[in-house]
Each structure stands twice: as structure tokens, then as C-alpha cells.
């Protein structure tokens, strides 16, 4: 590094190239250092039950969650008790940005996450430490290598009535809704296990972990393979198609008809 600077010095410290190089070196070293540090924490992440994680989670919980859920997870008028909800629940609710709530409403809306993955895991560790509940999913069920055909059938039977056959979401009563499914495999799995908000619980007796893996496989297939028919118009079915036929199809043709008849005048 010192050699490089010397060479730059020789070329003239005030050359514009010097600034660029300095900037590059600075960014690289900062990035490198950050990568080292975060790499270190990635290792720590795997051990979710370490006392360090739990302590970290407790601090975060007291600062961000306790005002509604209580200092000891006992809950309050504005939020339910979290004893026994498990790490899966915390990872889903916080990891998808639903918690902390943006506002009180019919249901917690998805928004950009407030916490880093590490902080989320720490919160999960803390909540899990105070009462047993569903843990984080086993990665082997999240690989998307299951049976997509079985998954599609299970999805239609168990999920499509609220989430729509294409996972585009749908309405529930009183302003609640089933959101469009665009979550990570882990979050989809956790949602099935914990039944967040208005969703029912699909426990392992109902849908075995392999079934859940198949469903995730089907959803991943849908997400990754291009639509065979072209642009899907939101996957909303005949309403979107009808609007499109009227406004684009008939609209275009009427515009052409107006143009054709205007020419002769």
C-alpha cells in the first residue's frame, strides 16, 4: 500500500487519479473489514441459543417490543403475550417487517424490515429462551427440491382459497387480507408452522415437513419459471383480463376506427 502511495506521489499527489485511487482503497479496506466482522457474526448466528445472542435479544426486545408485549413477554392491552410463540414466529414477524407494527389496523402489513438478520435472530433467541415454541425451520426443507406436482395440489387445497391459485393474494373479511406470497422459503415455512395473524396453523400432523417442502418447491417453481402465456396481468384472473380486453383491446380498436373514419373527412 505504501508502495502504491509512493508511486502516486511521484506522479503527483494532486492528480485526479490520486483521489480515485484513494477512494478505491478506502472503500475496499472498509468493505473488507466489514466483511470480516459480519463473517464473524455469521458464525455466531448458527448458535442461536448462545447466552450472548439471548442477552443481545433481550436488549433489543426491551427497547423495541416491550412497550406492547411487556418486559417479560406477558403482553398488554396493545399486544399479545409472546410466551411460547417460538423463534419461528419472531423470525417471520420481524424478518418480513410486519413487526414492529407500522400502525394498529386490521392486520400488520409487510414493510421493509427494521432489524438486520442478526438482530432478528437475537430477538428470536431471546423469545425462544423464555418459553418453548416452534423453532427455526430445518434448511433441508427449504431447498426447493421437493415434488412440485404434490406441492401444487396441496397448495390448491390448503392455501389457494385465501392466497389465490397463483399466490397473488386475496381478500378476507373486515379489511383483512391474505397477502401475495413473495417471501423467502424460510418465511413461507414459518408462516405455515405458526399461522401468523389471520392464517391458520398447518402443523406437522396436518402438512408434514415434506409436504411443506413440496409446497415451497411449487412456489419457487412458479416464481422462477417464466409465465408460459406471457405477461400475467397480476395473476388476478378474469377481472384483470376483462379490464384489459375492454381498455386495451377494445380501446385500441376504437382508436383505430376513429382514425380510419377521420381520414376521409
Amino acid at each position: 500500500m505504501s508502495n502504491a502511495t509512493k508511486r502516486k506521489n511521484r506522479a503527483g499527489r494532486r492528480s485526479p487519479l490520486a483521489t480515485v485511487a484513494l477512494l478505491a482503497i478506502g472503500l475496499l479496506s472498509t468493505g473488507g473489514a466489514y466483511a470480516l466482522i459480519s463473517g464473524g457474526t455469521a458464525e455466531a448466528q448458527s448458535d442461536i441459543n448462545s447466552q450472548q445472542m439471548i442477552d443481545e435479544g433481550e436488549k433489543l426486545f426491551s427497547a423495541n417490543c416491550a412497550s406492547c408485549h411487556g418486559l417479560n413477554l406477558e403482553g398488554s392491552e396493545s399486544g399479545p403475550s409472546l410466551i411460547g410463540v417460538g423463534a419461528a414466529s419472531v423470525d417471520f414477524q420481524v424478518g418480513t417487517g410486519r413487526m414492529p407494527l407500522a400502525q394498529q389496523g386490521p392486520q400488520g402489513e409487510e414493510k421493509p424490515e427494521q432489524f438486520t438478520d442478526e438482530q432478528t435472530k437475537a430477538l428470536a433467541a431471546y423469545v425462544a429462551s423464555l418459553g418453548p415454541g416452534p423453532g427455526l425451520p430445518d434448511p433441508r426443507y427449504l431447498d426447493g427440491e421437493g415434488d412440485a406436482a404434490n406441492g401444487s395440489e396441496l397448495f390448491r387445497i390448503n392455501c389457494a382459497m385465501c392466497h389465490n391459485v397463483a399466490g397473488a393474494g386475496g381478500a378476507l373479511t373486515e379489511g383483512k387480507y391474505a397477502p401475495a406470497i413473495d417471501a423467502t422459503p424460510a418465511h413461507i415455512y414459518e408462516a405455515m408452522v405458526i399461522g401468523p395473524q389471520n392464517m391458520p396453523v398447518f402443523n406437522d400432523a396436518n402438512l408434514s415437513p415434506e409436504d411443506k417442502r413440496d409446497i415451497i418447491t411449487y412456489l419457487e417453481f412458479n416464481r422462477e419459471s417464466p409465465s408460459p402465456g406471457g405477461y400475467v396481468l397480476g395473476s388476478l384472473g378474469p377481472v384483470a383480463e376483462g379490464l384489459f380486453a375492454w381498455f386495451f383491446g377494445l380501446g385500441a380498436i376504437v382508436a383505430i376506427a376513429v382514425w380510419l373514419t377521420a381520414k376521409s373527412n
Partner: protein
Amino acid sequence: MSTTTEPKRTRTSSYTAAAANYIDERTTISAVVKEFGRKIFPDHWSFMLGEVALYSFVVILLTGTFLTFFYDPSMAETHYEGSYVPLKGVEMSVAMASTLDISFDIRGGLLIRQIHHWGALLFIAATGLHMLRVFFTGTFRKPRELNWVIGFGLFILAMGEGFTGYSLPDDLLSGNGLRIIEGLVMGIPVIGTWISFLLFGGEFPGTAIVGRLYTLHILLLPAVLVALLALHLVFVVVHKHTQFAGPGRTNENVLGVPILPTFAAKAGGFFFIVFGVIVVMATFFAINPIWNYGPYDPSPVSAGTQPDWYIGFADGALRLIPPGLEIEFLNRTWSFNILIPMVALGAIIVLPMIYPFLEHWITRDNREHHIADRPRNAPTRTGIGAAGVTFYGVLWAAASSDLIATHFDLAMEHVIHFLQAAAILGPVVAYLITKRVCLALMKKDREIALHGIESGRIVKLPGGEFIEVHEQLDDYDRWKLVSYNDYAPLMIRPNSRGKITAATRVRAGLSRWFFEDRIAPVTRRDVELSHGEHHAAAAIEGEHQSAIGADRNRH
């Protein structure tokens, strides 16, 4: 405009002439060609909507024929072994499997399927818009009442074609649609259950319905549709085309281009434009992705399950009817939550169909009408039309109540309750507002016809007074504003036996409702008077200052 002169037949006739002569001598087709070929088409974009419907129907016929080559209307159970991975090995009907094969394993199959479906949506949409044009311009009046009824029959057949076709893939979405139809049929008192069992060949869904719908879809309905379509077109030729009022356009003539050769060439080009638009839609936009819906199974229902748009009003009626309207009577359940929507749907179909006869009964207008009304010049009819469109539109919107709720962050109950109120109040409000707007527009037209257009040019008179110059219309433009029929409410008169019947009273009442509020068309004398008055009345009539000023400025 259409002065095609028959070229004199020369002896040195070519092969074509000889062939034409051969055919004509044996079929006398020249009379037909002459009649059809000399039909005059006035130029107005709204007169092309019926053509759009016709052309999309041709597109549907062509693509539908292709689909029949590969589609198998069997409800026998099979396991899908085609190339779409997420359905491999899934149990389904042969109908569904063959539709998937068309989509994934037959070259061009998916494109043709999508052209067929988009074409169908466009066909019925164009038909609907064409009907609105005919209604709002009053061109269903004598002599065209019967053709209106035939056209309405075409519209109903088109919806039938659409619904039977929608059900053929035997996917989850269409199965749910059939289930709703079954529920509707079951709701008919006394005979409902029998009809349902007859229709489905037993308990729903059975193994017969897809094959039966297929026969209807490709045989009976298209045959009747084509026959009625031909009749519709013959009537269009027999009646001559209507036209909007304009210089030289009278009730006795038609101004435009003849079918042969100009219009035929233009129409041929337009056919390919319509075809092209449908193909563009089918190429880039997916429609009815049955691979997402999967095979029909009576247990699952997808969120956002809707019929295609033209059946939406029926779905909406079922969604809007409040729950719990069932009574037990004579040991049977009477489901008024089915019967009331059915009556509403019947009204939506029947009332517009017989409207020409209702209006005729009220107006007693036995004249032939070949000049299309401007909608504003028939305020009550336009108001009635707006009310009908509003009612239909509310039911239509109700079919997407769940999507309205999710996409506008509303509660579904609020959407439903709003639409329930709108279904009842909306038509009334739409009628009142539309009628008033029409009358206001007529007033505006009268004002313009009499006094000209505000030019925005402010002139200072020698006396120091400022006036805005009004520009007078030329005769062509004024013609469009002043030529419409004037009606007056019928008087109650006793009949030959000196009695005033109840029907007469009703008719007089309706006639008053129809024509009480009206703006009389400007007559030649009105125009002359308004010009003459300017000078005489200048001193007293402050109201006419501007127009007067304009004239003074001109002279």
C-alpha cells in the same frame, strides 16, 4: 357520391367475364351482389363497432376450429403426463389434460388458445359497445325494432358461447363457475333439482357436463349464432344504414361509400387490424392460465374466482343479495337470495330487448327513422340508458368486490354495502343527472345555433362599451345542431266510444314523463328572428348585448 357506372359489356369478353356470366345465368347472383354491393356505409367510427364484433367472431371461428382438432371433451380420469412439471402425474379429466397438451405440447397451441379466448372477450365487448351505440342513438326505432331483437339474441348467444367455452377446460376456475350455475338452477322452485340432475346427468359434477357443453359450444350455439348473424346483416342491408344528421343527409337518403369496391377494401383491411390487435394481445398477455388453476376438484376454491367479464353481472348480483332470505314453505326451501338475483338478471336481459316496443308504445311514433339521434336530443331515453348502464355497472363491479377491497385497502363488507346502495340509488341518480346534462347541452346547442360561438375577442365600441364578438356558425354546422325530431307529450283523448281507458291514461302519463322537459329545435324563423331582433331590440335587451355587438361589428 356513389355513382358507379356499369361498364358496357364488350364482346371481347375475358375469361372472368365469361365465368361470371356462367354463374349469373344459373344463380342470378348479380341481383344479390348489386343489392349488397351498392349498400352505402356512412363514415362514423361508431358504425364500425358491429364490424369489430363480426371480425372477432370470424377470428374465434378460425381458432376454435383449430382447437377442436386437439381438444377431447371427456371427463374420464387420467394422469397428466405432459411437459408441465407442477402437474406431472396429477389426476385430472381427459378434457383438462388435452387442454394442457394444447397449451404445452402442440406447436402454436397456446397462442391459438389465447387468441380464441382474447377474441371471445373482445367479441362480446364489441357487441356490447355496438348495442350501446344503437341504443343511445335511437337507431332501434322503426323500421329496425326487429333487428334490435335479433341483435339482442346474438348478444345472449354470445354470452352462452362464452360460458360454455369457459367451462370446457374442466379446470378449477371453470368448475367453480359451473358449481355456481348449478346452485342457481337448484334455486328454481319445484323443478330446480330435476333440471340440475338433467343438466349434469346426475349429481354435480358428474361425468357428462363437459361433453354436453362441448356439443352446445361447437354445434348448436354457433349454428344458431351464424344464422341470426346472417339475418342481422340482411336486415342491415334491407333497412339501409342510419346516419347522423348533416348537410345533405336526410331521412330518405344515405351518404357514404358503397360496399363495392371502396368499403369492402377498407373493411377487409379493418378485419386484419382487428385480427392483429387480438394476436398482439394473445402473444404478450396470458389469459386463463389453467396450469395455475389445476384440475377441477369440488373442494378447493381459489381466492379471486370470477367468471369472464360478460357473466360478471350475474356473479355480482349473487354477491350483492343480502344473506338469509330463505323461507320454508310447503315443505320446501324457497331461496329468495337466488330468486331475486335471477329476476334482476332477467330484467337486465328482457327490458333492453323489448325497449323499442315500450318506447313506441309511449311515443306512438310511427314514422321511419333513418337519422341517428344525438344522445342529448333524446334526454329521457339517454337518462334511461344511463340508469341501465349504471345498474349493470354496479353488478359488474360487485363481481370484483374482493379485488376492489384488496387493491384499494378497503374492507370487503364496506365495498359490498356501498355497492348494494349504489345498485338501488345509482340508477336513479344517473337518470336524473344524465337527463339534466342532456337538456343543458340542448340549451347550449340552441344558444350556439341562435347566437353563435363566443370567440373570445373583446371589442371596445365607440361609446366605450366592451363586448365579446360572437361568431356565427356556417349553415353546415348549424344544420347539425337544429335537425332533430321534436316531440310533445300526448294529450289524453277519449277513444271512438267516448271513453278514456286506463291504458290511455298510463300512456299519457309516461309520455308526459318522456317529453315534458324538452328544448324545441331552432327553426329557420328563430334564426332569422334572432338576427333581425338584434337591431330592433338593441336598446332594451341587455341580455343579447354580446350577440348584437357581434352582428353590428360584422355589418
